[in-house]
């Protein structure tokens, strides 16, 4: 019995039973629920403590990309990218995946070398990623002060997925397949019998489950503790902002490795993006702060001076669950049977289709796909962290 369950009163009338109970109704939880339902699994329940789109799935930068500097990340995320392209038809709802390309910029020798490595690794993995010459860069990003750029890589298949469309499509598709979605329903305990997870609690309501999945974003380590197990990583607050809309200024999604800046121009015309500031506050408050927008603004004015007079419409904060190597924690939990994890995502919207697809495959068939295997939940403990240099998070 877990500590959480020990405090519970004896079960009230037998509650519901689920084949799979997913904790977290963000994009990972919904994508997994959909993929499981597609495989014919019934009695899927999803619980979320917040409101629909209240977590990182409604607060992220919406950038998606297929390639990175490590083969592990590239294999997983290029699979995801393939799935994004066909997802509207699969769901029967338009997720607005926009294949506008994704440009990664290096402004130092260090990051220029990473860009070269990205091109090499992606070629080996069969992903279209091209080093951009100066003229091509001007064509894709006319507003960029190109003098500062040492290397640029463009992923043909990258782009953006607006979360309002993706989450709406996923919710509707899940509901159409009989998935029971419950928001503002906080899981307060997870039951264990011996080494197995057997059910969960929402206040005094118990739900028995053959299998429990934690997909609770930044809250995942806390939720794992309800089952008496540890999940490495910590909540990490990120902030983003939107500028007032204009007609199209540039097309691709953009990541600047040296500045840890990411941005794109949305279908609503707003330039949406953010950056990281070393030492920014950890913990789980959603209140936004000044340093991130101030530094983001400074980066933009430095490298895209023509934007300087645009106004900041709004800023907001959200949380990711930062694992030790910022890669997802995907698979069975090693310390508890029937407890599965889809957490640790820092590129969650990019990776969600692959995460849902491969985890559903593992849950339904027991087979761990080779693209998922490197992202095992206990890789830190086993000393198998993945080195990935082309992500826009500070190390």
């Amino acid at each position, binding site marked *: 019995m877990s500590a959480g369950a020990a405090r519970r009163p004896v079960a009230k009338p037998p509650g519901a039973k689920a084949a799979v109970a997913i904790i977290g109704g963000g994009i990972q939880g919904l994508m997994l629920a959909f993929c499981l339902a597609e495989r014919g699994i019934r009695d899927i329940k999803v619980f979320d403590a*917040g409101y629909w789109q209240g977590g990182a799935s409604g607060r992220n930068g919406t950038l998606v990309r297929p390639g990175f500097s490590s083969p592990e990340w590239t294999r997983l995320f290029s699979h995801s990218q393939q799935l994004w392209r066909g997802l*509207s038809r699969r769901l029967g709802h338009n997720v607005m995946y926009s294949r506008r390309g994704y440009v990664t910029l290096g402004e130092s020798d260090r990051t220029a070398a990473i860009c070269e490595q990205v091109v090499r690794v992606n070629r080996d993995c069969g992903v279209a990623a091209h080093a951009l010459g100066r003229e091509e860069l001007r064509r894709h990003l006319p507003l960029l002060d190109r003098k500062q750029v040492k290397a640029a890589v463009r992923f043909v298949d990258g782009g953006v997925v607006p979360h309002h469309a993706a989450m709406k499509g996923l919710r509707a598709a899940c509901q159409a397949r009989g998935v029971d979605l419950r928001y503002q329903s906080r899981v307060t305990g997870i039951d264990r019998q011996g080494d197995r997870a057997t059910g969960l609690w929402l206040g005094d309501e118990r739900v028995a489950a053959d299998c429990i999945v934690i997909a609770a974003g930044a809250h995942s380590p806390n939720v794992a503790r309800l089952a008496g197990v540890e999940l490495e990583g910590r909540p990490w607050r990120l902030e983003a902002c939107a500028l007032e809309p204009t007609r199209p200024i540039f097309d691709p999604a953009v990541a600047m490795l040296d500045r840890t800046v990411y941005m794109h121009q949305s279908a609503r015309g707003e330039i949406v993006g953010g950056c990281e500031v070393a030492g920014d506050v950890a*913990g789980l408050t959603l209140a936004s702060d*000044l340093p991130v927008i101030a530094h983001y603004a400074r980066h933009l004015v430095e490298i895209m001076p023509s934007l300087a007079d645009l106004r900041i419409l709004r800023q*907001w904060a959200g949380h990711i669950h930062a694992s030790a190597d910022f890669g997802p924690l995907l698979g069975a939990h090693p310390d508890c049977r029937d407890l599965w994890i889809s957490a640790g995502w820092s590129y969650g919207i990019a990776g969600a289709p692959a995460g849902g697809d491969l985890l559903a495959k593992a849950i339904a068939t027991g087979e761990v796909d080779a693209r998922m295997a490197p992202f095992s939940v206990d890789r830190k403990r086993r000393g198998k962290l993945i080195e990935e240099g082309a992500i826009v998070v500070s190390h």
Partner: protein
Amino acid sequence: MAADEHSGESVTIRWNGRRIEARVGDDVATSLYAAGVRVLNYSRKFHRPLGLSGSFVAGVKGQVDGLANVRLDRLPVRQGLIVEAQNVWPHPGLDLLQLARLVPRRWLAGGFEHPMWLPSGTRRFQIWERLLRIAAGGGRAMAPDRPGAVVAGEALGVDVAVVGGGPAGRRAAIAAAAAGQSVVLISRGTIPGAVAQALGASLPELPSAVRLLAGVEAAALYRGGRLLIAAPFDGGPAKLIEAARIVLATGRRSTPPLVRGADLPGVLDLPTAIGLLKHRARIRLERLCLIGTGDLAPLADRLAHLGADVVETVAAGSVCSIQGGRHVRGVLLGDGRRFACDTVVHAGPWRLDPVLPFQAAAAGEFRLTAGNLPPHVECHGGAAGPAEPVVHGPRLDDRALVCPCMDVTVAEIRRLVDAGTTHVEELKRLTGCGMGPCQGVPCWDLLAAALAALTGRQPDTFGHPSYRAPRGALTLAQAAGLAGLVQPEVGP
């Protein structure tokens, strides 16, 4: 006051190519109103005409010297200024986006932009998305070689920061200065308290010890109200103010009734009407219908004294709809009476400006909600409340707009409520309500009123989405100038 008077000097500006005479000291929106231009912009989806209102910011956005989204009500005129309507295509003379008005409104409800006949992953979706981006309501993109640079910010440490230059704000500033404290007073108006003065209030003179920041927006409060950001409208250096005590004397704002036509050009809130009458003595606000709460007779006299032609005075709650095509033509009351008029001025219901108090007190893991104000933040004067309830006429009208800038109608909210969605954050994400340039003021009050009428619950049980900083008040150049003035706050 000397600053109140115009030099009388005349300048010429251009509006969509047309020459307009304006007087030095006026802003562009006022000058255009004086020249008979009521429609300044168009809404994002339905392409409804919008103008100067005091309530809905999209109505005063224009394209100025190659820059989109400039607030015309805060831009002083100057010789040769070139101003254009921004949400038009291909140009103001031939605006094909007007065809959007022929589209049934239901087709453009939230989610219209992701229809399944244009699924992503196809080439036709990419073309569609491009069209969406062009039509998104913003102005033209700036030239890639437009120059730009960081505007260095300024850090200030004071004993007291006062927001609002009306009588309450001035009293708080004067008292603090008299006690030997260092005081900064932030006022949107270039003449703090001018509207209160025009309404007959006497303004105590500010001592020179009070540092006055006029023409400046108090853009945001961070860190539980310990950091106040103030941004001059003219793009000058933003201020980062650390104050031991913060006085919010932001007064009350009149909220338009939630009725059909309340978004029409010619519907003005009281301060905006006063601004027009005060700054352009030559404007006679013709055939003005005053609506509002409380005793309106003295106000009607005051407006008449300032040069308005007040034809009717009615309680805001009795208004059924405001009629007109491109601007106001009349007011229809619940009892069937109709008045012809050219201007509707609303003076109530009076609501509070919720943004800074929310930011000072907001906390939460799953949702930001406003708690109690921290002890060093106080609300003075009208800002201390209470607020009056929003009015929506005898019957909630499906055609009334909850959020005019983003074209969210009561009908759209009704459909979502009928489908089981009443959470304001979800409604915001499904409709875009409050995500335009007003950032939820006043639309989230209107949303709560609509929800209350649709569900039978009290408006205050719904809460409102997070009031997010910096509400369009900071340019990137100004924000960039604040980097380095403040260190990241490292959590536990």
